[in-house]
């Protein structure tokens, strides 16, 4: 479980996050949603420690991450897997080396065990016979899968996904969403997904936090988001006329 308390962040006097608190539960897909520029990615970066919040505290299973010393931060970070918006695969390494990278640098596992683990993770995300291909030789959807495989290869406890569907076609998006959901349940990870894709919200949003202009306006799940009375959230949810149309039917 990850708990955030009163997270605020400003850049050059412009408030991006304003006193956000919440709990992200283990074994569930916790979604942070909102329009572009509302601070979703900044909040995610604060949680994983890439950006230091101006105020507030972040707890990983009760461990204070914000004020932790370097050793504790490193220990927690080694339990984190993250799928970046642009996937962030290392260009100079093939798929196998990309997925094996966390094992090479963070563990002392024998080489054959590492390869077994890499192959298991690649198979788990539905990829086979791509080990020796370079990132530039695979499709966007495959890159996302490789990114997920790399994120989970080190038996992580916390999985973060920043806009996992960006740049993907609707069918592949659904497959990636389902994969994230399955992995969350199977590995019992605390998963946080930043997205503005309503298909993801409806499909996998066990718990949903809605941000608007840097503030948390609503919290709930995919089962009650369509019934919300919060106007800003309604504007966001029903921005897509198709959703509006289907909901009316």
């Amino acid at each position, binding site marked *: 479980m990850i708990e955030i308390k009163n997270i605020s962040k400003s850049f050059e006097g412009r408030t991006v996050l304003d006193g956000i608190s919440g709990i992200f539960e283990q074994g569930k897909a916790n979604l942070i949603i909102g329009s572009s520029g509302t601070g979703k990615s900044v909040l995610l*970066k604060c949680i*994983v*420690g*890439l950006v230091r919040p101006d105020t507030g505290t972040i707890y990983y299973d009760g461990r204070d991450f914000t004020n932790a010393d*370097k050793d504790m*931060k*490193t*220990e*927690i*970070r*080694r339990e*984190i897997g*993250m799928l*970046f*918006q*642009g996937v*962030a*695969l*290392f*260009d100079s390494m093939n798929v196998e080396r990309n997925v094996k*990278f*966390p094992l*090479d*640098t*963070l563990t002392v596992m024998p080489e054959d065990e590492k390869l077994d683990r890499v192959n298991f993770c690649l198979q788990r995300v539905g990829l086979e016979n791509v080990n020796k291909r370079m990132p530039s030789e695979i499709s966007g959807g495959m890159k996302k899968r490789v990114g997920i495989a790399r994120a989970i290869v080190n038996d992580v406890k916390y999985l*973060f996904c920043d806009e996992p569907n960006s740049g993907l076609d609707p069918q592949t998006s659904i497959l990636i969403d389902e994969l994230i959901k399955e992995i969350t349940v199977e590995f019992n990870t605390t998963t946080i997904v930043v997205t503005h894709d309503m298909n993801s919200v409806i499909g996998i949003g066990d718990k949903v936090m809605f941000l608007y202009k840097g503030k948390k306006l609503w919290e709930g799940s995919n089962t009650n988001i369509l019934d919300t009375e919060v106007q800003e959230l309604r504007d966001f949810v029903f921005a897509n006329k198709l959703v509006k149309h289907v909901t009316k039917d």
Partner: protein
Amino acid sequence: MKSIGLYIIFIGSMFSQRESFKTYVKRTIDEAILIGINSLTLVAIISTFIGMVTTVQTAANLVSPFVPESVISTVVRDMTILELAPTITSIVLAGKVGSNIAGELGTMRITEQIDALEVMGINSSSYLVFPKIAAAIIMFPLLVIIAGFLSIYGGYLVGTFTGVITGEDFVYGLRLDFRTYNVFMAIVKSLVFAFLISSISSYKGFFTRGGALEVGQASTSAVTNSCIAVLLADYLIAELLL
């Protein structure tokens, strides 16, 4: 001043939270191939031609019959060892290696690859930059030695081929009043230049913000700043060691 402070902090950050020794060895070898072996052809071509041109121009300027021809190779030798081999090679490498380092790190930054390392709990500056600096410090002196040898050999070839100096006179001039201290100075220069070029280029690339345009700007800035630093250091070393 702020940039200098950030640069010093950046250099210091490489020595905290280090990875395993094996990781550094492997990465340093990879970088040494990129920085050293892949620059060999360029350095060889440039240094050979510089030696040839220096010989021809020195010969052209020695018009007095009272100056022995062996002076040509003495001049070529001292110019090559003291200045041309370490400084010109480093300026050339600032262009090739410096822009490569800044471009690579800048691209890694804007495509979140550096963030990915940080999230994994890896000290990205130590993991990415330290091997580059170590590889440069290992390879630059070797490249400078090769450049010096090829430059003098290029001078010998053109000198004997065009008939401006005989082979015996050239070798005599090379041996005349030879100071090994000059070689030591060339090596010191190459070590200092290696550190400056690799660290400044890494700093510029590592802190790139924005997109493709900024990566290009970081590369350009890395080369210009490295060249200026090399020339300043060249002057300071000359003042201190000569």
